């Protein structure tokens, strides 16, 4: 078919084309492989022990272990003496220390006065990475168990499994309360984006919560929204009080570290940041970057947490944060003293024979509101920095309600029959 004189040329050409094609294919593949480290094996689906995860992810585990350095647990009462009178009637009035972080969750809760364990098993919910499996095992009965029955089963503190899927290492929500709170708001948490998840894994615990009166089920009071006034409206609608203040006689609700709630809508959050961006900054370890798993104040590593975006210099940045925090603390102290004064006036009114009950009741309502707005800011970490305007706004309301309460309590005494 091919004339003889061209046959050799044709064969030669085909061989050249094949060699060129094969080498091209080889070089393309050799030089265009995605750089990635293949996982070394698989971590068991319910592996709660962080040391096992550490075998596969040594750099992350190393930074997780750095949390052990966080050993200080100062009492809140040293800097906020008004907290004692505010919490009269609660365990918090006896002792209220700052916890030492994720590594010490079990040690810290085992050190509190055992008479506070009567609250029940739910107190363990954010103390150990074994809890999701235990909740699976007991179902709703988990919340009705005694504190000791659950606590005695716990070996590992907050660790990898709380936030990560052991198979894919993707972020995951392990606590039912957050998933259910989203459902009640008509939102699907599985639709959350990567950036939202970088806050939501924290929101499994760093939120305000309460225990349902009958079932003791741990619940987020978010049905009407996550802001202070919306949560208070939720409690008011249910006519729910966590305890009655022994001196003021007011039925009160207790706020808990509403870090996620207050951060939402803040300058940093609306700019697209998540908790992890400041509290788990990317750090270089050798030739790779990892998310730091040493959770601490970003002020301790401004070079990694702040200056990536803000190039203004460490001293200036620190002074801006300190300024916000000092001003929040100043107005919080004023609010704290005002609410304590309201409690004192209510005590006088309550003990006055024939006191005007209608006015006393109104004064107590104002006290309930004032203490709520104060508490929502006071027990949230960061001294207002998570959302300065909202913190100051809530404290302003607290002062106003406290003054209204004082005025009404005095009127109730004046109009005693």
């Amino acid at each position, binding site marked *: 078919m091919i004339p003889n004189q061209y046959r050799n040329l044709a064969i030669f050409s085909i061989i050249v084309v094949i060699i060129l094609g094969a080498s091209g294919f080889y070089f393309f593949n050799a030089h265009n492989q995605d750089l990635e480290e293949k996982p070394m094996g698989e971590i068991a689906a319910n592996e709660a022990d962080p040391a096992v995860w550490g075998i596969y992810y040594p750099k992350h585990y190393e930074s997780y272990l750095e949390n052990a350095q966080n050993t200080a647990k100062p009492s809140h009462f040293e800097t906020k003496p008004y907290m004692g009178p505010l919490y009269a009637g609660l365990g918090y009035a006896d002792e209220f220390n700052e916890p030492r972080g994720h590594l010490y969750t079990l040690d810290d809760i085992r050190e509190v006065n055992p008479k506070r364990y009567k609250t029940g098993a739910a107190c363990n919910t954010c103390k150990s990475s074994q809890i999701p499996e235990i909740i699976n095992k007991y179902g709703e009965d988990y919340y009705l168990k005694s504190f000791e029955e659950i606590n005695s089963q716990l070996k590992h503190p907050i660790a990898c499994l709380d936030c990560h899927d052991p198979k894919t290492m993707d972020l995951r929500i392990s606590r039912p309360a957050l998933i259910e709170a989203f459902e009640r708001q008509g939102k699907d948490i599985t639709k959350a984006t990567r950036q939202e998840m970088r806050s939501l894994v924290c929101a499994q615990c760093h939120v305000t919560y309460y225990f349902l009166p009958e079932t003791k089920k741990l619940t987020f009071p978010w049905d009407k929204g996550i802001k202070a006034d919306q949560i208070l409206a939720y409690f008011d609608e249910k006519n729910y009080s966590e305890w009655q203040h022994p001196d003021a006689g007011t039925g009160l609700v207790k706020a808990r570290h509403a870090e996620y709630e207050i951060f939402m809508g803040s300058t940093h959050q609306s700019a697209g940041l998540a908790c992890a961006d400041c509290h788990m900054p990317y750090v270089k370890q050798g030739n790779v*970057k990892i998310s730091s798993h040493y959770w601490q104040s970003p002020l301790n590593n401004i070079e990694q947490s702040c200056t990536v975006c803000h190039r203004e210099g460490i001293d200036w940045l620190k002074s801006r944060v300190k300024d916000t925090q000092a001003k929040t603390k100043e107005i919080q102290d004023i609010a704290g003293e005002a609410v304590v004064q309201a409690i004192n006036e209510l005590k006088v009114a309550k003990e006055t024979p024939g006191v005007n009950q209608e006015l006393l009741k109104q004064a107590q309502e104002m006290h309930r509101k004032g203490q709520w707005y104060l508490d929502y800011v006071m027990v949230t970490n960061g001294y207002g920095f998570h959302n300065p305007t909202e913190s100051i706004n809530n404290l302003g309301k607290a002062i106003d309600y406290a003054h209204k309460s004082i005025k009404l309590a005095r009127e109730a005494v004046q109009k005693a029959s």
Partner: protein
Amino acid sequence: MKKKLFWLAGFAFFSFALMLLTKVPALGLDKAEFCGQCHVMYEQVETYLHSAHRLGANCGDCHIPHSLVYGATYKAYTGTRDIVAVLTDTAPKEIRVTKLGKDILQENCLRCHGGLLEQVGDTRENNGKYCFDCHRSTPHQK
């Protein structure tokens, strides 16, 4: 008719070859000295020339796709668009990167820094953040 088609095809091929030429490094069409000729880019060029990236990357290394054909095509498109904007004095006061431009940038960040990010992965995935959302002054001011 056949002749016309031949010339047309020849012209198209020649234009395409010319377009590919824009990616030839020796011509310097990716360098800040070229891109910065238009006064609208002064701020970016001056700050870039003070950054560490000036030692290892020029404008095109970040802003133009790396591959020859796609890169040259994109460059021809944006280059033409920018020239028209400058000539008609419709260049925006505040230059903003397009969505497509962002994705090209991100690919180029990872092209060089992929090893560093092998544990972190592409931060852009699933509605995440681009590298330069945080590193917003790297390698030049907005």
